[in-house]
């Protein structure tokens, strides 16, 4: 009996949490659609999520492309098909690594900070203060962050892809001597618009997931410094898990 009670209790807990998260998402959608639109706040959040993540995105994508070039070259050379390096680098980046690694980096840099910010505003009653002033905190605080996430992450991922492709170029072509024309022609040959579109759809979805989870966890954070810490950890872990799980689901839908 104890086993079933425990399973039942856990199921109710998780279902309840999922329901609350969905309600939170609906709240965001409705409040974002309702005027007044606070464009300046969205721009501020774009600055935080987008502009300030550029450096780390450039760094990680450069190295990702370079290691793809290196690994791909040595694997492909065994089959004498180094000329496929361009398509290997581009396809892995655009379909998978760009959206996944890009959004994981955004989670680490911006998502955790958003959770902490909202969490501190929650425990210091700033969110309640907005509410008493009749300003909807979801509209005022959460909606700009989530909108900015949905807008900024696809752009960051596109930048990730391009820098990664050039990172692969530096290692594959400049260092290891693959023919430059072959690198890019192979890429153009195997890449279809559908791949780019799929990558964009993924990054859009991941941008929403990351900001959604981060805002939800911060907005509903527990008491005290410990509560903010726990919320931040949960936000990062849950974002990462959801990004990877949805990556599988979206890949199977898009293929």
């Amino acid at each position, binding site marked *: 009996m104890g086993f079933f009670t425990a399973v039942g209790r856990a199921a109710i807990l998780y279902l309840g949490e999922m329901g609350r998260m969905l309600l939170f998402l609906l709240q965001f959608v409705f409040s974002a659609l309702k005027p007044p639109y606070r464009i*300046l706040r969205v*721009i*501020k959040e*774009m*600055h935080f999520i*987008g*502009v300030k993540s*550029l450096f780390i995105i450039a760094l990680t994508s450069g190295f990702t492309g370079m290691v793809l070039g290196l690994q791909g070259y040595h694997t492909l050379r065994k089959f004498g098909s180094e000329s496929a390096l361009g398509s290997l680098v*581009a396809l892995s980046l*655009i379909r998978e690594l760009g959206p996944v690694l890009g959004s994981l980096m955004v989670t680490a840099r911006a998502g955790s900070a958003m959770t902490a910010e909202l969490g501190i505003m929650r425990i210091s009653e700033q969110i309640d203060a907005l509410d008493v002033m009749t300003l909807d905190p979801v509209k005022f605080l959460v909606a700009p962050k989530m909108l900015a996430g949905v807008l*900024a992450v*696809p*752009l*960051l991922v*596109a*930048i990730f*892809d*391009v820098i990664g*492709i050039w990172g692969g170029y530096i290692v594959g072509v400049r260092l290891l001597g693959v023919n430059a024309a072959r690198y890019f022609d192979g*890429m*153009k*040959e195997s*890449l*279809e*618009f*559908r*791949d*780019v*579109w799929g*990558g*964009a759809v993924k990054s859009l979805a991941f941008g929403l997931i990351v900001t959604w989870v981060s805002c939800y966890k911060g907005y509903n954070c527990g008491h005290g410094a410990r509560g903010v810490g726990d919320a931040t950890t949960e936000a990062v872990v849950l974002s990462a898990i959801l990004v990877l799980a949805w990556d599988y689901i979206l890949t199977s839908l898009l293929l």
Partner: protein
Amino acid sequence: MKEERMEILVGVFVAIGLAALAYLSINLGRLPVFGPKTYAIKAVFTSSSGLKDGDTIEIAGVEVGKVAGIGLKDYNSVVSMNIDSGIKLPDDTMASIRTRGIIGEKFIKLSPGGSETALRPGETIINTESSIDIEELVSKYIFSLSKPSGEKGVEGKK
């Protein structure tokens, strides 16, 4: 002043991001909207085995278009092709499905004939050569060895 600086930075970020997206879609992914203008023609093959959407169409080794779709009509394969507008094809053009390299990437080779009239958009190439099935080829070869008389037939593999 501070806000203005932030707005500029965000503007630059959005511009870079859109440029990256455009580079990926147009230059690498060849987004059809901005690609060269094309017209559609069809060709009927008895078999288009191995051919896929997006495979290239070539004349004398130069790419002139792409496979846009493959369908079935009267148990024959109907392949739709998008040909660059600049290329005029005579109506007796021959289309053949060929294999490139050892991995077996398929493409369509067009061999223009000598006719004066050009194919108009939507028209169909009748003169075609289907994909060559290696297995079939091998079995034919074995068959012709065992029966040097060159008699046609499929039965009697012994």
